[in-house]
């Protein structure tokens, strides 16, 4: 079971080596304090690892799997029982879907469209377990939901137009 996932930037804007977190998802209840503590600690451990080292770290009895894409580290905290290599694949799966969706995803996409990143994540993982292994299906579902949002917005705007016209 996956306990947490977060995407962390290697170097912050002002040049300090402290990671800036772009995305976090928690599949177990943790208080706000615990969460920030975890993030701080793990960032410290992971961001300082050299490039040639293996992608697994042991931390407090859990395993943490991380993968680096450009300047962004995707980290997942898992059980002892889970298959680390598979988790690497899951991370890659997610990143590939993001790529397809945003078209050559970059970090700015994640910043300005964080809610969409979360929606996609929710189609891939629920309760810490994998939900869908087909990228096409996920893309289809997200597209369908997006179109729902679009039509709803159009309706809303057209109604407000009408009302605005009527009450002028």
């Amino acid at each position: 079971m996956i306990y947490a996932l977060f995407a962390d930037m290697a170097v912050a804007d002002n040049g300090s080596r402290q990671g800036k977190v772009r995305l976090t998802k928690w599949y177990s209840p943790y208080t706000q304090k615990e969460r920030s503590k975890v993030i701080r600690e793990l960032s410290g451990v992971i961001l300082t690892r050299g490039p040639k080292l293996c992608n697994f770290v042991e931390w407090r009895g859990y395993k943490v799997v991380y993968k680096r894409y450009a300047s962004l580290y995707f980290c997942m905290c898992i059980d002892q029982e889970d298959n680390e290599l598979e988790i690497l694949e899951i991370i890659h799966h997610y990143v590939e879907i993001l790529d397809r969706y945003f078209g050559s995803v970059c970090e700015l996409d994640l910043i300005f469209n964080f809610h969409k990143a979360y929606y996609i994540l929710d189609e891939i993982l629920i309760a810490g377990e994998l939900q869908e292994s087909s990228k096409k299906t996920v893309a289809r579902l997200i597209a369908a939901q997006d179109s729902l949002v679009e039509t709803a917005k159009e309706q809303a705007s057209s109604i407000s137009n009408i009302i605005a016209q009527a009450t002028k």
Partner: protein
Amino acid sequence: MIRSIRACKTAAEERAVVRKECAAIRAAINENDQDYRHRNLAKLMFIHMLGYPTHFGQMECLKSIASAGFPEKRIGYLGLMLLLDERQEVLIDLNHTNQYIVGLALCALGNICSAEMARDLAPEVERLLQFRDPNIRKKAALCSIRIIKKVPDLAENFINPAAALLKEKHHGVLITGIQLVTDICKVSTEALEFFRKPKCLDGLVKTLRDVVNSPYAPEYDIAGITDPFLHIRLLKLLHVLGQGDADASDCMNDILAQVATKTESNKNAGNAILYECVETIMSIEDNGGLRVLAINILGRFLSNRDNNIRYVALNMLMKAITVDAQAVQRHRATILECVKDLDASIRKRALELVYLLVNESNVKPLTKELIDYLEISDQEFKGDLTAKICSMVEKFSPDKIWYIDQMLKVLSEAGNFVKDEVWHALIVVISNASDLHGYTVRALYRAVQTSIEQESLVRVAIWCIGEYGDMLVNNVGVLNIEDPITVTESDAVDVVEIAIKHHSSDITTKAMAMVALLKLSSRFPSCSERIRDIIVQNKGSLVLELQQRSIEFNSIVEKHQNIRSTLVERMPVLDEATFSGRRAGSLPATVSTSSGTSLNLPNGVAKPAAAPLVDLLDLSSDDAPVPSSSGNDFLQDLLGVDVSPASVQPGTSQAPKAGTDVLLDLLSIGSPPVQNNSTPSDILSSSQDNKSSVAILDGLSPAPSGGAASMIDLLDGFVPNSPKPEDNGPAYPSIVAFESSSLILTFNFSKPPGNPQTTLIQATFTNLSPNVYTDFVFQAAVPKFLQLHLDPASGNTLPASGNGSITQTLRVTNSQHGKKPLVMRTRIAYKLNNRDVLEEGQINNFPRDL
């Protein structure tokens, strides 16, 4: 808004912008603004991610969810999952017609539901497991997982729907269905039985086979393998089902073999599948061929260039050792290479694995490799490495000389990382290897020349030099593998002096050095003056222990040469069996690997945790030892005291009495309560302010403050005292307590009024020989239930041929008055023509009712 926040250059600026935004949002909330609600929520979430508090937005989330529009719901649920957690009670609309909304609800429920919510909504979710839309079905499946994790009792309800899911074609549903079944089986044994039935199992095997053999499917393809995730989930389920059940395992053998051999391993996806396959093979019931296959795969992994692969291989091999140690041994060389890897995680894993592989036949080459590596390893790793090497060497060393050699190497290289119990054990072994004493002390001498900054090495060295200094100087017991070396007495003293004065020596080392100097002053009389000078330098030390030792030892060296040699006689052999028995008893024997499983290893390797020093030190605070307590037994054995038959330790070594009895008797003078078998703990209990472990091993030197002081006083105070007249009428007959050809000792008894338990004894010593006895000293020891007090003797010169006598008064209190008679051991020392004479005896003929 995001842009404006990102444009902020400093944290303060950012805070200002955020505050403004929050204010705007709050205002909008208060006005119940519908239109921008979802935008505000999105802003809120972003602000939350930056780390600012957003509690005021939580109601907004709920309102958003409750509203009708899809966008609001979507963002509302997202907000729900991000900002709230399972502690909140939330209404969920699982019955909505819009399947996407149901999907959202299930997703939220899956991520954050609490136990009560789970109970309430379980029937709904169960129904949704059979919904027509696969999207909902898969979400419902994962949601069910959460439910049964929160409320395990509900698991049975889900068995049937879950079984239906296993027959799905849609991969997403299949994956989630399999996951659900796996989790149900983990929670409920009834479910496990159900799914183990051949009907289900065959179905699963067939599914796996289909996936493995399926042609290229672009939708699910990853690195040339169709849906590796499905592969892995199926393997995991097979693992759960096959574990512990031979029939089930049989069913799986073929397909597992197929997966193991056919899967390509040049990409991570393939390796992930192989890894899971190996894991499954290792856990199900034994099938020799499969296991060999699995271990071969692991062997291939080990030589893979990819760090990740090697890491997981090492992990798996640790589990594999329980199953087939032989096969793993074959890969020992590769594993050893991994210990030196650049990657810290790999090093750690490899070291643990190597440790598990050690046995009698390979311990020598392995240790050599590890010690070589110790020299070049980096600091954080040294601690681990040292601990492992020490424990390996201790458990498997074939002979003592090899053990001592290895330990010396380790101490020279990394003495500062060595734990105290390790060098204690080394000293125990050294003292037991009597033929190697000379060799050891010479080797230590050489080692110390080069590695003086390794604290533990220095400590062991000065202890040995103190004990066996004469062997060092006189080249006793030279083995023919040794290089010749000449060490003069002053060289030996040099080493100890350096140890005392070295800036990095701590209190323990300095204290040990003092004792060593005392021993040397007796063994090397020519250096006595120089030694005294060194000792005296610490007279004003700010550390109480050092000051105390300095003053006492100085006093011994100066004034009490006659007893000095007996004080620092060679220590009796420390009993190894007792020592290791104590250690093993007080240490938790756990083997912990990162995988969390505790292994019960066939070759009996138990990694000792750091032995609490307190265990050894506990002995020092025991005042009234019980014979069955092993701690005190150790010391009683140490000092060779007669242990009562009730004691637990059979066959303890009775070490030479001479040295130890002196101490017993010395301490029996003037210090109540004097007890026969608790004297060792008296030694230690009176030196309670010295908490260093050294107290145990060096405790035989009379460091106790109380006892020693009084002893020295008594020895100093050979002032003729007029014997106190006792005029209670002789109610008891006097006895001849001790008689030899040259000496008679008579006891006269009287009872002081009012205290029936106490007896006053007047002892009279008469000299029967024609020679004068000088420096006459009488000492006595009594068993536990008696208390003895000696007054100073009337003199210490006994004229010849009975022309005079010495008298001394003794006071004895019998706590078992009426039940047990008095009994006493005596020791009389005197000088005859400047020759020391010692007479010992036991007095059993006390009148019974004293």
